[in-house]
Each structure stands twice: as structure tokens, then as C-alpha cells.
């Protein structure tokens, strides 16, 4: 019986924890996030006590000092002693709050002596992670299917909080985040770490965490960054150091394989059907958020590709804008985000979809030639 009971309790524990976190701040999984939670609760309770006293006095007057009870108004209208007391006492309470707040803040801002450093770069509307001292870097995009957002499919458990490639960090080590942006201001937030830091274009902010429990931790962009601000989640996986090292070795190897594959693909050419199929996939993942699935863009904000001069005539300009982006606009440089084959395919797609029908077929080798010009 006791085994049954224990297993039932164990099964319920995560449910209970989840239920609690739906109404209150998370306690998180780091020493800092616990201190932040304690601070939050302390100040909340202080506010409750003050509230009970003030509202108590108010309701007492409203109930006992009513005209309908035949009360005659008193005539007092000042009392220096009382007024000094209710100026000084709140001041002392504030000092009591400020002391733990100050020490927690100083600890949170101490980014020194980190063992792992990750450069976090926000852009419309995805995160990019680059591990210092390695070549490993990748983009992390929303993985929730478009159909779920449009209510055509049932929403999954981690709706809007899932990405294709999460950030991976080791447990038990101090990890430093250098945070910046490629376009507008974003804010990188993981509630379980009590880390929220703005990603400012042209500047680098610092934050850190030290996670003790392995697990998956989810957050979101917290600063309005344009149309798809609500669709750029943050997912971090904390792994035991040994597992982390294995994962990192795998990433380094995969990176090498990808580079070899890229070289191999340069020699191969796609036929039109292959290019259109791959191109559509890339377009939906990287371009449709702005230029829309039908290629018509949003007038006045994001230009149409359907029937545009560039997509119909200017091939070199088209490759250039996809590879290098366009400064002063939302158009990003995709040269370092997509493989040459993907760029070739998406340019082909844009030149032949939605009735553009130029018949142009671009190959990875063309992109390679352009980039090495």
C-alpha cells in the first residue's frame, strides 16, 4: 500500500509544482532564482500586512463611523506625532527591504570567472547561439507548426515554447551569456534562471547562471520586437558536464561533416523540382514571416516578391540581397544562416513561385561564385 501511495505522490508532484507555478513566480532552479523568489515573497507579505492595517482602518471607519449610525463627525484635522510616525515607520520598512535586495542584485551582476561563455544574438524573430572557444554556432527557431497557431491542428503541450535547436549548457558550471542583437531590441528571458537581459543592437550585455539540476527550461523574448515578438521562444537544456561534453563533441563533428557536405554539393546540381521543393521549405521557415506565404508581403512594411522587379529581372541583385541583406531595413543577411544549396533553392523558388515563372534555376555553385567574387 505504501509503495502505491508513494508512487501516486511522486506522480502527482510535478502536477502540483506546475499548478503552483501557474499563479506565482517560479522558484527556479538556481541559487539566484531562489533568492529572487524569497525576496518576492517577503515583499509581498510586507505589502499584505500593510494592506490589512490600512484597509482595516478604512473599513472600520466605513462600518462604524457612518452617518446612518448617528455618528457626529470629530473635528481633529492634524496630529504632528502621528504624521511623523507614518513617515518614519515606512522609511524603516523600506531600509529593511533594501538590504537583501542590494545583496541579491550585486550577486546577480557579478559575471566574473565564468567557465563557459555563450554569445546570444537576437534578430527578428529568432535567437542565435555561439559558443566561445569553439566553432559551434546555430540559430534557434520556433518549432511550433503554423497550423497549430492558426487553430487547424490541436495545440501541443509546449505550444509556442518549443524550438528546433535549444541552447545546451552544462550543469554545475558558471555560464556567462553575452547578449546582443542584429536589428531591434529583444530581451532574452529564462524565468527559471531569473535571467532577463535586453539584447541591444550594437551593444553587448552580460548575464550569468549556474544551474544545478539537469532539465529543459523555457522562456520567451520579453521586449516588443515587431510583428512576431510573441513567436521567438528561448529553450535551454542543462546537461550533466559529461553529457554536455559529448554533445559538444558531436556538434563539432557535425559542423565538420556539414562543411564537407557543402563542398560536395557544390559539384552537384539540382533539377527544377528538387530546387522548388527545398526552396519552398526554406521560404516557409525563413522568409514567409515577412514576405508572407503568398509572396505578397505586407504593403508599406514588407515588400512583395510576387511580380517584383528584382525577382523577375535582377538575378545578381536578388542573390545579393538574400546573402547580404539590406542595411537600414528588416531584411537580414542569410549568407551565414542558410547553406549555399538552401540559398540557391530559395532564390529559385522566389523566381518561379506565385506566377513569377522566370524559369531561372540557381545552383549552389552560383552562390559560391557570388560569395567568392
Amino acid at each position: 500500500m505504501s509503495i502505491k501511495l508513494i508512487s501516486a505522490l511522486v506522480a502527482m508532484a510535478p502536477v502540483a509544482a506546475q499548478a503552483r507555478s501557474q499563479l506565482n513566480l517560479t522558484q527556479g532552479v538556481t541559487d539566484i532564482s531562489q533568492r529572487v523568489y524569497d525576496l518576492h515573497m517577503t515583499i509581498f507579505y510586507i505589502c499584505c500586512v500593510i494592506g490589512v492595517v490600512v484597509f482595516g482602518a478604512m473599513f472600520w471607519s466605513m462600518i462604524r463611523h457612518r452617518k446612518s449610525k448617528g455618528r457626529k463627525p470629530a473635528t481633529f484635522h492634524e496630529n504632528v506625532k502621528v504624521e511623523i510616525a507614518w513617515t518614519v515607520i515606512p522609511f524603516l520598512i523600506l531600509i529593511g527591504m533594501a538590504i537583501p535586495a542590494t545583496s541579491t542584485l550585486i550577486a546577480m551582476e557579478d559575471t566574473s570567472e565564468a567557465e563557459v561563455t555563450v554569445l546570444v544574438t537576437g534578430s527578428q524573430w529568432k535567437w542565435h547561439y555561439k559558443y566561445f572557444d569553439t566553432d559551434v554556432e546555430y540559430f534557434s527557431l520556433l518549432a511550433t507548426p503554423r497550423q497549430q497557431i492558426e487553430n487547424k491542428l490541436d495545440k501541443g503541450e509546449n505550444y509556442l515554447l518549443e524550438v528546433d535547436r535549444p541552447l545546451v549548457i552544462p550543469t554545475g558550471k558558471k555560464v556567462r551569456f553575452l547578449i546582443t542583437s542584429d536589428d531591434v531590441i529583444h530581451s532574452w528571458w529564462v524565468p527559471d534562471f531569473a535571467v532577463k537581459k535586453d539584447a541591444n543592437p550594437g551593444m553587448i550585455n552580460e548575464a550569468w547562471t549556474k544551474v544545478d539540476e539537469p532539465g529543459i527550461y523555457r522562456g520567451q523574448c520579453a521586449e516588443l520586437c515587431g510583428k512576431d515578438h510573441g513567436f521567438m521562444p528561448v529553450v535551454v537544456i542543462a546537461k550533466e558536464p559529461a553529457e554536455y561534453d559529448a554533445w559538444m563533441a558531436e556538434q563539432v563533428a557535425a559542423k565538420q561533416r556539414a562543411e564537407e557536405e557543402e563542398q560536395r554539393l557544390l559539384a552537384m546540381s539540382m533539377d527544377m523540382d528538387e530546387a522548388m521543393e527545398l526552396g519552398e521549405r526554406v521560404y516557409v521557415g525563413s522568409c514567409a514571416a515577412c514576405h508572407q506565404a503568398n509572396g505578397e508581403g505586407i504593403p508599406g512594411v514588407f515588400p512583395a516578391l510576387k511580380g517584383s522587379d528584382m525577382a523577375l529581372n535582377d538575378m545578381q541583385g536578388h542573390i545579393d540581397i538574400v546573402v547580404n541583406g539590406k542595411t537600414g531595413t528588416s531584411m537580414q543577411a542569410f549568407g551565414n544562416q542558410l547553406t549555399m544549396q538552401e540559398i540557391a533553392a530559395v532564390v529559385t523558388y522566389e523566381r518561379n513561385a506565385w506566377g513569377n515563372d522566370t524559369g531561372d534555376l540557381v545552383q549552389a555553385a552560383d552562390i559560391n561564385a557570388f560569395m567568392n567574387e
Partner: protein
Amino acid sequence: MSTVVGEMDHHDHHHHAPSGITRWLFTTNHKDIGSLYLWFSFIMFLVGGAMAMVIRAELFQPGLQLVEPHFFNQMTTVHGLIMVFGAVMPAFTGLANWMIPMMIGAPDMALPRMNNWSFWILPFAFAILLASLFMEGGGPAFGWTFYAPLSTTYSSDSTALFVFSVHIMGISSIMGAINVIVTIMNMRAPGMTYMKMPLFVWTWFITAFLLIAVMPVLAGAVTMVLTDKYFGTSFFDAAGGGDPVMFQHIFWFFGHPEVYIMILPSFGIVSAIIPAFSRKQLFGYASMVYATAAIAGLSFLVWAHHMFTTGMPVFAELFFMYCTMLISVPTGVKVFNWVATMWRGSITFEPPMMFALAFVILFTIGGFSGLMLAITPVDFQYHDTYFVVAHFHYVLVSGAIFSIMAAAYYWLPKWTGHMYDMGLAKLHFWASLISVNVLFFPMHFAGLAGMPRRIPDYSIQFADINQIVSIGGFAFGLSQLIFLWLVIKCVRGGEKAPAKPWEGAEGLEWTVPSPAPYHTFDTPPEVK
């Protein structure tokens, strides 16, 4: 000499109101202009409210149902701009126009023609802003705080209209503020010393100085946005030697005093109403004045508490945390004074008092969440979540707007000469009180659980809370139509109001008949 004055008086009496549209277009009468401001702000309140309904309808369920994210962002942006600059601020200016001359025994505002102009440019400002929604690419979609570079490099061309519209609003506010200051300093009746002025006059006096100090800063901010976007400057672009975070410093140097611009007149209103219906003199008049001045002074030292996550030096974070916490001392003094005013009074619960009491309680709740937000390490968790949305709606809706409702119920008999429908007023109060809490209280929980603000769609764990919030929102929106109906009914007729309809009310405005004559205090009253 005396004959000259006599002749001028005589001349003035012939100068009666023209009828029809020209009365309102060319009016220099403080009461007419006050009415124009109040009607304008109520219309804007309904327009901004309609946008809030769109927001709440989209957020009723997870997923995208009704509007596209780009349009959703336009709704949150324009809702904020309209409520701040179109609803709350003009309502206070309307109250100032109507009441300040009558409270200090002056015949009118000091600068009546400027008064006309400062109102009549406002409809154009908001026509421009609303028209921008119909432009190609839509209206402003970068939040009412228009952070660069989202509002510069990455915005649509409606930004230019937004900038001009904000400029016009700013000019209107500055002229209104100048008028208030000049009126109060020069036109008080004999014997009306500064420390005898009603608190509504005092709080507006201080508010007017805040307006003059910060509206030019806002004008500077929008101008830099304009030149960054169209004329190749780089104030907020790091690539050209600028700094996007500097935009936020400039904006919030305006923005934080702006928050107090929207609450100090409320303090004045509540300080008139609570003594009236407690039948007891306001407790601690002098400390109320000093506390208001202290809040206004501190408001210039706390702006960066809106920016704790932008990456400031620890020293700066500590400075702004301590200063922000300090504001709770004078604010606390005010709340304690109101409670002490009620203590051992002889209280009745007419509609103005009901709204004033709800104001004290709900504003204090907003103050508590404000104190929590001041604590920098915890603010990192609260910042840009629904906890913040809950906080500022508690102080602005159940704070500022409830105080405006209280003021309307307090002075409506004086303005129209009729008593209003008490049953309807109480219905409006209870419907508003319950729905405003259903609307905003659960937002605290959504924010603590991690829901960011300004998102058109959310993860499924927030579904229940958002559904409750939306229902509260629709109910609150509909409740305000009761008020519209009540006011129309009261303007058109009703029981004749006496000069002083409230037993415990104090002040010069109650010495003139109801409705207040077109010209009051041609001869200044003697204040003892």
C-alpha cells in the same frame, strides 16, 4: 478710474454666448472649454476602449483568431497613446478648466484665447493618429513607448504622422499647463492664499509644472525619431555612433513624470470628496501639499526603473531602486491622511464617495505592486510581463479613471443644474468595480507565471486566466455605456440641483447657483 472698470463690466455682460456651432468653435469661456475637453476625452475613452476590446477578443483563446500580429501591435500601441494622451490627460484638463477658476474665485482662465486653441488643436492631433491606421503598412505598431530602432529603421511610414500627432498633443498640453499656472498665480480671490487653495488646485498647480518640464523632452524624443528615420541622423543607431538605450533614457525622463501627471490631479479630487462625505475636514492639509511636491520632485529621479534590464551599471540600478522605493513614503502619507480623514467622521456613500473609496483601495493595490516592481532583482522577473500590465492599469484605470468618474459624479449637478439618476450611478459603480477587478487582478497571476506583455498569442498554460480577463474586459467596457447614458440623461433634465447638493461639501464652487452661470465671480469673492 472706477467708471472705466464699470464700463468694461457692462460691456462684458453683453458679450453673451453665441449659439450653434460657433459658440463651441470660438468660445473662450472656461466652462465651455471644460465641457469640450470632457466630451472629447470621453469619446477618446470609448475609442481607446474599443481597441482594448479587440485586444481582449484576440486574447480570449490561444492561437490567432481575429487579427494579424501586425494589427494587434497597432491596437496595443494606439490604445495606449489614446488612453494616455486622449482620455486621461484631456479629462484632467477639462476638470481644471471647469473647476480651478470657480475654486479660486476667478472669473475665467487667465489666457482664454490660448485656452480655445489648446483644445481645438487636439481633435486634429487624434484625427492624424487615427488616420494613420488606414495607411498602407498600418499605423504605429511599436508600443506607446516607441523604442528605437523599432520605431525608426524598422517602422512603417505612419511614423511621420505619429510624430506630428504627438507634437500637437504636446503643444496642447504645454499651453494648457501655462494657462493653469498663470491663472493660479494671478487670479486668486483676495484672501485666497496659497495654503488656503483646495487640494485639487494645488495638485494641478504642481502637475502643470511637471507638464512644462517634460513635454518638451517628449517633443525632442519624437523629433530625433523623425530625423533618424528620414534625415539620416544616428541618435539611436549604434552603427552611426548613437545609442538605442539613450532613447529609453530620454523617453522615460518624460515618461515617469508623465505617470504622475496622470495621478496627482486624482489625489486632489479624492482630497475634496473624502472630507465632503465624511463631513470632516481633510486630515493633514499641509502634509498633503508637501507630499505632492515631494512626489513631483522624486519623479525626476526614478526614470530608469523602467529600464533595469537594459544593462546598467550596478551603481545606477541601486540608485534608481532606492529613489523609487522612497516614493512610497509621500504616497503612503497621502493614503494615511485619507484614512485619518474618514476616521471618526460621519460617512455617507453617494456615488462620488463610492468611486473615491474604490480609488483609495485599488490605487493602493497598484502602489503595492509598484513597490514590488521597484526591487531591481525581482523586477528582472516582473519586467515586461502582465504583472506590469496589471500594475499600471490598477493605478491608471481604477486609479486615475475612477477618480475622474468620482469628479464627474461630484460636480455633475454643478455643471448641468440637475441631479443625476442615483440608481443608475450606483449600478455603474458596482458594475465597474467588479469588472475592473475581474479584468486586471488575474493579470498579476499571468505575469508572475511568465506571460510576456504585447503578445498576440500565448502558451496554453495561460488560457484560463486570459479567458477570465477578457470576460472582465468586455464587462468593464459595456459598463461605461451606463455612464454615457447617465450623463446624457442628466444634461437633458432631472431633479433641480441646489447650489450645494452635498451636505458636507466645502469650497467656493458651491457658493454659486447650479448650473453655474456662464460667468461666475465677475466680482471676486472675499475669502476669510
